[in-house]
C-alpha cells in the first residue's frame, strides 16, 4: 500500500523533479507588483565612527525612492537584532549583549556593517545611488583576531565589554560541579602522561548555494506584512520580528521560506537585511526586495568556528584517560549573533567527553569581540570544535605513547552496557556501540593492509598517512526545559499537522524546513508507512507560517528526530480517530479494531474498511458517530523530546602527501555512522557525503582570513577555497544502528555528522604521514603551502 516507499526505502527524492527541471521557486523568483529594490551601503572600514551620512545626491538620482539610515530606524523604534540564547559568566554575570542595530547607530564595527539602505525602482538604480551616498567615516583602530583583541591596549569595540570580553564561561559551572576544576587539575598533576596541544579551529564562510534574499510586502490597507525570506525557520523569524524588532502582532505577519538553496546554519538568524526590507516596506507601502550578491554573502552571512584552544589530556600508565582540560578563546565577531554566544559554550562544553569515559573534565571559554563579521552556528555548531580537539589530542597521545590509534580509543570507550551514560559534562548519552562502529570502519578500510599500502605509496614517491576520528554529537535540539536551563530564550519542540482529505490523500504541515534535507520525501515515507497510503498521495507542506501552525525549524540535525516524531504523534492521533470511525462503520468495538496496511480490520475477522473510506466517512458523515466524534480527520501534535539524541561514528581517512609540493590527496575515506533508525538510506548517504565534503573542505582548503585590522582577505572564490567534486575521493559509507530510546522513531539525525567527524580524521592522517619527517603540528587548513612550510620547518630543525 505504501507503494514500496515506506520507512527504510531508498525512495527517489520527490523534490528533484522541480529542482532539476528549473521549477523550483526561490525568494528571488518571486516578484510582486510595484516592487522596489534595496541596496545596502556597507562600511568599508572595520571600525569607524560615522560622522555624517549625506544622501542628497543619491536621492536626486533617477528611480530612487528613499535612503534610510539608523536614525530613521531609531525614530521608528525598531528594535535591535535579538540574541536568542543567554550565557552566564563564571562570576555569575550575564554575557555582554551590546545592541546590534540593523543599520549602524553611529559606529561601524566590521567591514560590511550596514550603514544605510537605498530603495529604488530597479536594483541597478539602488546600487548606483548607494555609491552616491556620502558617508563620512572617522576611522578607529581595529583588531580581527580574538587573541589580539584580548591584549592590553587593544582597540575597544563595545563600551560595555571591557577588554572585548563578551563572557568568560566555565563548564561545568562550579555551582553544578564544585569539584570539577580541582579534580581535573589534580588528575593532570598525578597523571602518568599529559599530552597537550594548541589548536586553531579555522574560521569558515558557510557558502550556501543560494545567497540570502528577502522580499517584504506590507499592505497598508490590511496592515498585513508578508515576508518571503531564505530561512531555515520561518516561525522563528516571525517570532523575532514580532517580539524583538518590528514589534507587530503575529497575526499580522506571515513569513514564507519557499525553496531555499542550502543553509548550513547561515539562514537560521534574524538578519539586518530582512528586518530592513520589512521596515522599509511598512514605511513606504511598497514591496521591497533585497537579494545578496555573493560578495555580500562573504561579508554579511554569519561565519563559523574561529576557536583558539589549548587542550590537555591526562592518561594513567595504562593509557586510560583520567582528565581533560580545555581552554578556548572563541571569536564572536563584532556583535553577538542570534546563537553566537551559545555555539562556543552550551553546544560545545557538554560534548567534551566525546565517546570516552574520561572522569574529570573542565573547560573555560572566553567569548571575544573583534572587528569581523559575527560568527554563529555553522554545520555542527560547537560540536565540530569539541570533536576536533578531542580526536586530535587522543591521536597525539597514541603517537606519543607508540600506541595504535584504534587501541587507545578502544581502551577508553564507553561500553554498550553503560547506556544511558551520564557524562561528566552534563549529557545523558542515549545509546551507542562504539567498538562495533570502529570494527566496521576498520574492516571497510582494510586496516591491516595499511603498511603494505604505505610501502606502495612510498614507491611512488608519496608519504601515506592514516587518521581516525570518533565523533559523538548532540542532535535533535532540544528538550525545551533543558535548553531553558542552559539559557535558551525559546522552546525547541516541533509541530506537525496531518490533514487527511476526503479522498484519503494526506497533507502534512511541518514546522521543520527543508533546504536540501529531503523532508518532502522522507516525511512522506513516514506517512506512507504509518497510514498505508500511497507515497504519491502524500504532500509535505513547510516553510510558511500562514499554512503551518508553528515550528522551530531545521538545524542541529533535529528535523527527523523532533519534527518526524511530532509527525508520528499526529499520525497516531489520526489512526486513533480513524479506529473509532471504523468501529462505527464495522459495527464493532473500537478496542477490537486493528490497523495495518491501510486497512482497519475487526481483529480475527475479514471484516475491514480501507483508510480512504474512513476518511470519506469523516467528511461525508452520513453514517458516522456524530454524538461522540467531530467530523473531519485532521490532527496536530507538538513533540518536545525528553533528551537530545547522540549520533556517533568512526571515520578513517588515508592520505598521500607529495612532499615536493605539499599536496595532500585523500586516497580513502571510510565513514561508519550510527544514526539510529534510518528512514531513507539514500538521503542519509547524501547527507553524509555533503557533511564530509564540508569537513574535508575545512581540513584542507577553507579558511576565512582577515588582515590584522579586519579587512576581509577571502572575499570571493578567487581566494576562499571551496572543495570541488574532484578534490574528494569516492566515500565508503556504512551505518550501524542503535536506536535512540528518546523519540518514537528511534532516529538520531545525520545532517552534521560528516562535518564534525571529518576534520580530525583528515588532520590525523596528514600528521601520520608527516611525522616521519619530524613534523609535529599543523593547523587547518593543511593547504599545499602550509604543508610544504611545515616540512621545511621540520627539515631545518625549527
Amino acid at each position: 500500500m505504501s507503494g514500496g516507499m515506506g520507512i527504510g526505502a531508498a525512495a527517489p527524492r520527490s523534490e528533484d523533479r522541480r529542482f532539476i527541471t528549473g521549477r523550483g521557486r526561490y525568494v528571488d523568483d518571486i516578484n510582486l507588483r510595484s516592487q522596489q529594490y534595496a541596496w545596502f551601503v556597507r562600511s568599508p572600514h572595520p571600525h569607524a565612527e560615522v560622522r555624517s551620512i549625506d544622501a542628497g545626491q543619491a536621492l536626486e538620482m533617477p528611480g530612487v525612492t528613499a535612503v534610510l539610515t539608523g536614525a530613521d530606524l531609531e525614530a521608528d523604534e525598531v528594535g535591535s537584532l535579538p540574541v536568542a540564547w543567554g550565557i552566564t559568566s563564571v562570576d555569575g554575570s550575564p554575557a555582554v549583549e551590546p545592541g546590534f542595530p540593523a543599520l549602524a547607530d553611529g559606529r561601524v564595527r566590521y567591514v560590511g556593517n550596514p550603514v544605510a539602505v537605498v530603495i529604488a525602482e530597479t536594483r541597478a538604480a539602488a546600487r548606483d545611488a548607494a555609491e552616491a551616498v556620502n558617508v563620512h567615516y572617522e576611522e578607529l583602530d581595529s583588531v580581527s583576531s580574538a587573541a589580539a583583541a584580548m591584549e592590553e591596549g587593544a582597540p575597544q569595540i563595545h563600551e560595555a565589554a571591557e577588554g572585548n570580553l563578551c563572557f568568560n564561561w566555565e563548564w561545568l559551572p562550579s555551582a553544578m560541579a564544585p569539584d570539577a576544576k580541582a579534580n581535573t587539575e589534580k588528575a593532570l598533576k598525578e597523571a602518568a602522561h599529559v599530552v597537550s596541544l594548541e589548536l586553531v579551529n579555522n574560521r569558515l564562510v558557510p557558502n550556501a548555494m543560494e545567497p540570502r534574499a528577502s522580499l517584504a510586502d506590507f499592505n497598508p490597507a490590511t496592515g498585513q506584512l508578508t515576508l518571503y525570506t531564505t530561512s531555515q525557520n520561518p516561525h522563528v523569524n516571525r517570532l523575532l520580528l514580532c517580539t524583538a524588532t518590528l514589534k507587530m502582532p503575529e497575526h499580522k505577519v506571515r513569513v514564507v521560506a519557499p525553496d531555499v538553496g542550502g543553509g548550513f546554519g547561515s539562514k537560521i538568524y534574524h538578519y539586518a537585511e530582512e528586518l530592513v526590507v520589512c521596515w522599509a516596506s511598512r514605511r513606504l507601502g511598497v514591496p521591497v526586495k533585497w537579494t545578496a550578491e555573493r560578495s555580500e554573502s562573504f561579508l554579511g552571512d554569519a561565519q563559523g568556528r574561529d576557536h583558539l584552544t589549548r587542550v590537555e589530556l591526562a592518561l594513567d600508565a595504562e593509557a586510560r584517560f583520567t582528565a581533560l582540560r580545555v581552554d578556548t578563546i572563541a571569536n564572536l565577531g563584532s556583535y553577538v549573533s542570534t546563537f553566537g554566544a551559545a555555539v562556543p559554550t552550551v553546544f560545545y562544553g557538554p560534548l567534551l567527553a566525546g565517546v570516552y569515559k574520561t572522569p574529570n573534565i573542565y573547560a573555560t571559554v572566553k567569548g571575544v569581540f573583534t572587528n569581523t563579521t559575527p560568527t554563529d552556528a555553522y554545520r555542527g555548531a560547537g560540536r565540530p570544535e569539541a570533536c576536533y580537539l578531542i580526536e586530535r589530542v587522543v591521536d597525539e597521545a597514541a603517537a606519543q605513547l607508540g600506541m595504535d590509534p584504534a587501541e587507545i580509543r578502544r581502551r577508553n570507550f564507553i561500553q554498550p552496557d553503560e547506556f544511558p551514560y551520564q557524562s561528566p559534562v552534563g549529557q545523558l548519552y542515549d545509546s551507542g556501540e562504539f567498538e562495533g562502529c570502529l570494527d566496521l570502519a576498520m574492516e571497510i578500510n582494510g586496516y591491516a593492509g595499511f603498511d603494505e599500502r604505505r610501502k606502495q605509496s612510498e614507491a611512488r614517491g608519496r608519504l601515506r598517512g592514516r587518521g581516525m576520528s570518533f565523533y559523538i554529537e548532540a542532535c535533535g535540539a532540544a528538550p525545551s526545559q533543558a535548553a531553558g536551563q542552559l539559557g535558551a530564550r525559546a522552546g525547541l519542540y516541533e509541530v506537525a499537522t496531518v490533514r487527511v482529505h476526503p479522498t484519503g490523500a494526506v497533507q502534512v504541515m511541518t514546522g521543520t524546513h527543508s533546504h536540501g534535507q529531503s523532508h518532502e520525501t522522507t516525511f512522506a515515507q513516514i506517512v506512507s508507512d504509518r497510514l498505508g497510503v500511497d507515497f504519491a498521495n502524500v504532500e509535505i507542506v513547510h516553510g510558511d507560517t500562514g499554512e503551518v501552525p508553528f515550528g522551530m525549524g531545521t538545524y542541529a540535525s533535529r528535523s527527523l528526530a523532533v519534527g518526524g516524531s511530532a509527525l508520528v504523534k499526529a499520525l497516531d492521533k489520526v489512526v486513533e480517530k480513524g479506529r473509532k470511525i471504523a468501529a462505527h462503520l464495522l459495527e464493532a468495538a473500537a478496542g477490537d479494531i486493528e490497523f495495518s496496511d491501510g486497512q482497519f480490520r475487526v481483529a480475527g475477522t475479514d471484516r475491514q474498511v480501507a483508510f480512504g473510506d474512513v476518511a470519506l466517512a469523516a467528511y461525508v458523515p452520513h453514517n458516522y458517530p456524530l454524538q461522540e466524534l467531530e467530523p473531519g480527520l485532521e490532527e496536530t501534535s507538538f513533540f518536545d523530546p525528553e533528551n537530545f539524541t547522540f549520533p556517533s561514528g568512526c571515520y578513517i581517512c588515508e592520505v598521500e602527501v607529495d612532499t615536493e609540493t605539499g599536496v595532500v590527496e585523500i586516497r580513502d575515506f571510510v565513514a561508519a555512522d550510527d544514526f539510529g533508525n534510518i528512514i531513507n538510506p539514500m538521503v542519509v548517504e547524501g547527507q553524509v557525503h555533503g557533511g564530509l565534503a564540508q569537513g574535508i573542505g575545512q581540513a584542507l582548503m577553507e579558511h576565512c582570513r582577515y588582515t590584522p585590522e579586519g579587512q576581509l582577505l577571502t572575499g570571493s572564490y578567487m581566494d576562499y577555497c571551496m572543495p570541488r567534486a574532484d578534490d574528494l575521493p569516492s566515500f565508503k559509507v556504512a551505518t550501524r544502528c542503535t536506536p535512540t530510546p528518546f523519540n518514537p522513531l528511534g532516529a538520531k539525525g545525520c545532517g552534521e555528522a560528516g562535518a564534525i567527524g571529518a576534520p580530525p580524521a583528515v588532520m590525523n592522517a596528514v600528521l601520520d604521514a608527516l611525522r616521519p619527517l619530524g613534523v609535529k603540528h599543523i593547523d587547518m587548513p593543511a593547504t599545499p603551502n602550509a604543508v610544504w612550510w611545515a616540512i621545511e620547518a621540520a627539515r631545518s630543525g625549527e
Partner: protein
Amino acid sequence: MREFDYYRAGSVRDAAKRLAASGNAMLLAGGMTLLPALKMRLNEPSELIDLGGIDELKGVKLSRKGAHIGATTTHVEVAGNVELRAAIPVISQAAESIGDPQVRNRGTLGGSVANNDPAADYPAVALGLGATIITNKRKISADSFFVGLFETALGTGEMVTEVLFPLPQRAGYAKFPNPATRYALVGVCVAQFKSGVRVAVTGAGPSVYRLEDFEEALEGDFSSDALDGLSVSAANLNDDMHASAEYRAHLVGVMARRAVAMALD
C-alpha cells in the same frame, strides 16, 4: 554592472573600426574575466564589442609553420582538436587544465593572451613555444607581446586575431593549480626546438617570463636531472595567502622538472 552599449561586430574590420572610434569600448570574447569584472564594477566600459559573431576569428589550422589558432577559439575547442593534439599536444594539455568546464566552454585563446593575467596558462605556452601573436595590424613575437601585469604590446584599436604556435621537437606544460581558482599558482612550459630550449613561467611573477638559466641547462642536456642544482630566487615573486614567494620559487623548480618529464614522456 553599470550600463553600457552592446555591439555585435560582423567582421574584424568592423570591430576594429568600432574600437578605434570609441574612447572607452572593450572587446568581448568569452567574457570569463571581463563579465565578473563588470559585475564587480572593476571595469566600466561605455560599450562592449562582441567578437562572438566573427567567423574568421574561430578555428584551428595546421600548416608547415605550425598551429594557427583563431582568437575566439574556445579552450574546449583547442583541447578537443585531434590534429592539434597530435601535432603540439602541450597546447591541448594546457587548454584542458584551464578553469572548469564552464570556463573552457566560453573562454577563448585570444581573450586569455590579450588579458595577460599573471596566472593564466596560455601566456606560458605562447611564450614557451615562442608563438607569434597576430593582430589586425601586425605580428608580434610572444617575447615582445607580454609586457607586464595585465599589460601587453597591444596598441589602441588593436586586437588579437590569431596566435601562431611553431612546432617544437617536444614540449611540456606542468601546472600547479591554485586550489581556489585553478589558475596557475605556478605553471612552467618547457619546449625544445632545433634552435634551442625555451622555458616560460606563469603564476610566479607579475607577468609570464622566461627562465634563462634553466634554458641554458636544458640546451646542454634536455632532462630533469639537468636542472638539479639550479634554484630560483624568491625575490620579486608573488607572495599571497595561497603561496609565499619562497614556496612559489620552489614550485618553479618542481614544475620545470615535471614539464621536462612530460616533454620526454
